[in-house]
């Protein structure tokens, strides 16, 4: 998937992902990310080719990992 497709997915899920209205798109990067279905239980992880998309504002950020092939949201990191 290309960057524009990924950003469209995120914008359509903005409220579902709880992206604060103050936050604006900051960066997009293709990267290899670590993934596990249930991060709360120990065990092996796998790696995925993904887009890491970052939104930020003066008081914080959100980083979203999206599978580069399927568009599935793999992980969300928040500053707060």
């Amino acid at each position, binding site marked *: 998937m290309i960057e524009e497709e990924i950003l469209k997915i995120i914008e359509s899920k903005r409220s579902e992902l709880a992206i604060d209205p103050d936050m604006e798109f900051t960066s997009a*990067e293709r*990267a*290899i*990310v*670590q993934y596990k279905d249930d991060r709360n239980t120990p065990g*092996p992880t796998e*790696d*995925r*080719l*993904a887009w890491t998309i970052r939104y930020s504002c003066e008081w914080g950020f959100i980083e979203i990992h999206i599978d580069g092939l399927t568009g599935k949201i793999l992980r969300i990191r928040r500053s707060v």
Partner: protein
Amino acid sequence: MNKIEPKKEATIELVAELLSRHLEVGGVYTSRPDFYFQCEAEEPREYIAGFEIRVKTWWHWSDARVTFDGDNGELMAYSINRYADPPNCEEMTQKEAIATVTKAIQVPSDAVLKSFYHFEYAPQRKLARLEWERFHQELRVDGDYLFVSIHPKTHRIVEFARKWRTLRLT
């Protein structure tokens, strides 16, 4: 005034001074001896001819820490607590820092130097730091890292942290 005026604080200061001298004999000069030991005075004990105050001491000599990967036992990080000693305001060049690191640590072939900078761990305690990122087939590997802190005056590696996982791309 009671002759056995509790002079617990004065006693602690005296013991701390003695212990600080021991540190100096060992080559450690610090404005914060309490980083290395702590003292606690007991209540004064009275005798006919005077009194005594006993002081308990806890040596806090070093907090060396080592972290291993729980799955494969790989060394992930280590640090030593006295890493800002001796006091230092000097800086080193990136070339010197890399030469120091490569003597002790094998930097992975897919590591890309991200930054080199100095920072003050505490006032007049300056350290140099090198940080690498990992790139696999031109893609950054999120979550993997390697950083090393070096004492610029002694060229000691005082802190090391690395996560370089085995990739399982699916």
